[in-house]
Structures are given as C-alpha cells and as structure tokens.
C-alpha cells in the first residue's frame, strides 16, 4: 500500500460526504425550503465534476479502483444525468414529495457514487458491489411516492426482478471465478488464455457463465428479454428517477458490460471462438431489443411507457457498437451514451414538467403544445428527432458511428436490422411531434418550468445540437477512453 495516489478517490468520497451533508441539511433547515436541498445537490455534483477533472488517472488497491479514461468518460455521464435528474426534480420536490426530500436527493447522489465506483471497478467483487450500490438506492427512489399505488408497484417490481437478476449475475460471476481462479478481470483474461493454450479448448461452462452475466447486466440495460420490468417501472416511478434510470443506470450497465466482456472476454468475441462467441449472443439480443422495443413503442399512449420502449430500442443500438468490440465500437458506444444523456434526459424533463402541470402522461394531452409553449415544443422535437437519429442532431452522428463500427466488425445483418427498425422508430417519435404541432384541439396548458429545469433543457438542447454538428471533441475523448482496452 505504498506510494498510492489516494487523491483519485476524492471525487467519490466527496460526493458520498455531500450526500450525507444533504441528509443533515434537510434536518437543519427543518424541511422548510426544498429548493436549498436541490441546489446543494446540484452544487455537489458540479463540484464532483470539477474534482474529477483535477484528480484522475491512476489505480488504487492493486488495480481494484481504476481511474482511467473510460471510467472518467462514463463518470461524467453519470454526474450529468444525476445533475439533470436533480434539476428536473424541483417541482415535484416542492409538491409531491412531502417527506424525506433530503433523502430523495441524497439517494440520487448515493446511486451516482455507486455508478462511479462501478465504472472504476476492474474486479468482479467490486463490480458486483458497485452494481448493488447503484441499484439499491434506485429501488427506493422508484417507490418514492409512497402513497401512489403506481410508484410503489414500480419500486416493488424493480426490486424483485432486480434481486432476481442480481442472483443470476452472482451465479455467473461465481462460475467465472471458478473457471479462472481469480476475480481480477485482467488476470482472468490471462488465465483463460493459459487454459486455452494448455487444453486447446475451453469447456462450454464459460458460455454458461457469460450468458448468466449477460442476463444480469442485461437487466440493468433493459435488454430483451430481460426488459420486462422497464415499462412498468418507468411508468410508475417519479419521472426524474425514470430519466435517471434510463440514462445513468443504463450507462452503468454499459460500462460494466464493457469491463467484463470487452476487456476480460474480448478473445471470445469472434466467430473463431465458436461456440464461445459472446458477440453473436449480444448481437441477437440487440436485434431483438431493437425490433421489440421499436414495434411495441408504436402503440403506446403514455409518454413514459413509450420512452421506456424507446430506451429498450436505444440500448439495442448501443449494443451494435458494443459487439463490434473495436476501438471505434467502444468509442461509438461512449459517444452514443453521451448524446443519449442529453436527448433522453431532456425528453424526460419535458415529461416531468408537463406532468407537474397537468398530472397527465398521456401523449394525447400534448396536443397543441406548440401553440402555448412553442419553445418547449421545439425542445421536445429536438430531443425526439435526436433519439430518432435525424441529422444533423447528435443522435444521427451517434447512430452513424455505431453502424459504421458494426459494419466494420462484420455485423452487416445487425446494422440492417438497426436501420430498418430506426425507420419504424421515427414514426412514433414523429407522432408526438405531430401531436404537439398538428393537433386541431385547442390547447389549454402552458408550461412554466422552474429555473433549474430550464437550465437542464437548455444544456440538453445545446449539447445535442453542438455535439451533433461538432462531434469532434466528444468523439476524440471517447476514442481516447476506448484505448484503455487492448484490442
């Protein structure tokens, strides 16, 4: 334990302490002014981001904690999604959440801490704990409206399916441990190649382990067929939490997936390794996710459920980049998640604001929004069009890169499926735009978001447009972060 650079833990430790501080603050201000809590949570996240920029690069605990570029890239996404979730929570925090406001924000921060630890984990035990640390606060947050039947039901469903998947994941991890004799991902890679070299083959036990790990992480990603919980939970949970689930928690799943599969089991991602090729498994699941997600989204009338199916489909696109398992593939996944952060958080923020005002999540109630709140209708259109992948918004460049990576890696059929389904997807995204702009019904609702929500929306719109037209900086960074894997 000598000459270790402990300072790289500072962002995580700070955020943890800040969450405790918010618990205390809630007691201190006697629950009078909910805004202070929200602002301090946002401030804490901002400071964490700054600290992350200062203290990074290095490994701790014999490599169990790695502050490499990939971790930092995704930590920025986590912090960003938490920031936006907090920002869009101001209205519900003052009206719907009467109790435990401090805990509400504190748990968001805790979950973010969990994600940050998870993204830095390069060892199975830490990874598993990071995963639980991410998820357990989210169980509670999903059920945070304790008087609301839907919210509690959402929390319960999330919890049961989550615990179930966590057990499956654990079993998979235990098999990996047994097969390789180690919990360290890099050593695991070495041991596997040793076994391969000495025996000339690796038994099908490995594929069992891989499938169970895919299932466990697939739960977090809401990958078909491990997605069933998602629509219900997304619908019932408080909307900012839904947004956080759909972005932060998914990004955490993505990074965990990348760590285990792209870093540890990279050798088994090609046709040569049949039948141990995890690439084809994930490719089929991704195709299923794109098809099922997009098609089911077509007939949804609730915007949160629609966005749930849409995010099931979106993760399918992300996985196209993942199965490519190349530098471009991982970079495109990073870029995709970055744009997805803006687009999805933005869309959910609008849904939150709208729900505050009208109490409705029905798509039909967005009728004529363009007349009363033209700016927000325009924002929403930008988010949805970016999700659909319309140029020149960020979503287009993201899809382009992911598809290019897929084609480069030889998954042409998958890219064709992705293209076809994205044609379908545009229909339901455009349907909302149509409802907002082309509805003959007289609109009555005018939405006035609070300042932080406005800020979130503005950041998202600027992010989508700016990084859509100039993807350079983000992409370079993502490429840099992809370099940590030796391809």
């Amino acid at each position: 334990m000598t000459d270790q650079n402990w300072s790289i833990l500072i962002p995580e430790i700070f955020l943890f302490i800040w969450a405790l501080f918010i618990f205390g603050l809630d007691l201190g201000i006697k629950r009078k002014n909910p805004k202070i809590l929200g602002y301090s949570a946002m401030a804490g996240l901002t400071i964490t981001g700054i600290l992350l920029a200062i203290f990074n690069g290095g490994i701790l605990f014999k490599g169990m904690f790695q502050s490499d570029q990939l971790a930092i890239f995704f930590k920025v996404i986590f912090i960003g999604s938490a920031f936006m979730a907090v920002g869009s929570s101001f209205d519900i925090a003052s009206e719907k959440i009467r109790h435990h406001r401090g805990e509400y924000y504190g748990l968001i921060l805790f979950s973010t801490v969990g994600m940050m630890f998870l993204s830095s984990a390069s060892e199975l035990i830490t990874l598993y704990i990071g995963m639980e640390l991410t998820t357990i606060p989210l169980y509670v947050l999903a059920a945070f409206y304790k008087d609301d039947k839907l919210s509690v039901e959402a929390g319960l469903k999330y919890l049961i399916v989550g615990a179930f998947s966590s057990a499956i994941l654990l079993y998979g991890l235990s098999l990996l441990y047994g097969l390789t004799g180690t919990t360290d991902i890099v050593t695991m890679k070495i041991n596997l190649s040793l076994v391969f070299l000495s025996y000339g083959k690796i038994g099908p036990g490995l594929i069992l382990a891989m499938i169970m790990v895919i299932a466990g992480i697939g739960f977090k990603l809401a990958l078909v067929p491990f997605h069933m919980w998602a629509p219900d939970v997304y619908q019932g949970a408080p909307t900012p939490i839904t947004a956080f689930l759909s972005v932060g928690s998914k990004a955490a799943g993505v990074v965990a997936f990348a760590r285990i599969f792209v870093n540890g089991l990279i050798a088994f991602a090609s046709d040569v390794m049949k039948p141990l090729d995890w690439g084809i498994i994930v490719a089929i699941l991704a195709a299923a996710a794109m098809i099922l997600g997009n098609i089911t989204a077509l007939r949804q009338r609730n915007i949160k459920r629609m966005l749930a199916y849409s995010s099931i489909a979106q993760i399918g696109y992300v996985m196209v980049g993942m199965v490519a398992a190349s530098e471009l593939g991982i970079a495109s996944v990073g870029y995709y998640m970055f744009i997805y952060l803006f687009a999805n958080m933005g869309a959910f923020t609008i849904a939150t604001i709208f729900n505050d005002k009208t109490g409705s999540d029905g798509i039909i109630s967005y009728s004529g929004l363009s007349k009363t709140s033209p700016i927000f209708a325009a924002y929403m259109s930008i988010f949805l069009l970016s999700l659909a992948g319309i140029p020149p918004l960020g979503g287009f460049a993201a899809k382009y890169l992911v598809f290019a990576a897929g084609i480069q890696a030889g998954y042409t059929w998958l890219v064709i499926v992705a293209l076809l389904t994205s044609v379908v997807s545009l229909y339901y995204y455009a349907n909302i735009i149509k409802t907002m702009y082309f509805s003959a019904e007289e609109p009555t609702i005018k939405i006035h978001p609070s300042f932080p929500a406005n800020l979130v929306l503005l950041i998202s719109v600027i992010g989508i447009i700016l990084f859509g037209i100039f993807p350079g900086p983000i992409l370079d960074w993502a490429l840099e972060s992809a370099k940590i894997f030796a391809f």
Partner: protein
Amino acid sequence: MELAIFYISAIVAAGGALMMILQRNPVASVLYLILSLVALAVLFVQLSALFVGSLLIIVYAGAILVLFLFVIMLLNLRGEKFTSEKPILDKGTKITLVVLFFMELVILIKQMAFPQRMDSLMTQASPDFGGVEPVATLLYTKYLYPFELTSILLLVAIVGAVIMAKRDKNEEEGER
C-alpha cells in the same frame, strides 16, 4: 464418511428449500429456509470455510431470516389466501422451464474445464484455511476497498429501509 455427510446435508438443504417454496404459511417457509441454510453451513464447513459457514448461521439464519419473521408478524399475514386460480398449464410450463434450466446447468457444469492447478490441488487444505484470521487478513488488506464499499452499501440500505418502512405523518401540511 464425508460423502455421507455431503449427501445428508445436500438432501436437507435442497429439501428445505423445496419445502420452503411449497409452503402456504410464510412462517413455516422461513423455518424451512433456516433448516436449509443450516445444512448449507455444514457443507461450507466441510469445504473448510469455517468462518463463512458460521457467518451463514449467525448472520443469515440469525439475523436476516429473523427480520423476515418480524415482517411476517408485523404484517399479520396468517389470513391471506393464495388460492391458485391460474390454469395448471401455466404452472406446468413454469416447472418444465425450471427443470430444463436445471438440466442445462448440470450438463454444462459437468463439461466445465477448470484451470490446470485445480485438478492437482484437490487435497487436504492447510489447517487454517478458511479460518477467521486468514479471511479477516484478506478482508482488511487485499479486499479493504470492496469491504469499505460494502459499508457504504449498508448505510444506503439503512436509509432506504427507513424511508420505505416509516409511516409518514402528514404534519407538514400545517407548516406549509
């Protein structure tokens, strides 16, 4: 001898688990689960995992499952009926699914190739293998970091459990 202990424990563990899911009364379920866990602890000890085995009894059977019992008492669930009106077909499909799952697991586990040293080292473990001290040493040195992470996790769980289980009085109405 060892084999006999294994089989007895295995049967008790599996049977306990099976009985647990077949019970209608949750209290009985918990008791069967405790039985199953005790048998499992015996196997742990047989595998030279003395420390973890005893933890299984102390922590799992002693604390977690008691928590379950508390909750059952608290909710006073005696009266609830879970009469099955589901078609038998549904149940049959599910059972088939589980049996298939088990068969797949068995087939694949039997075909597993393990690292070379595993075959050679199936011998007597060193006397303090799995004892309190070596495990604790590992925990506080090599695995200090996940250990500390777990403490955060427990804190989060406490906060979460309190928030969830607490009955909120609507006192704030007046304040606002």
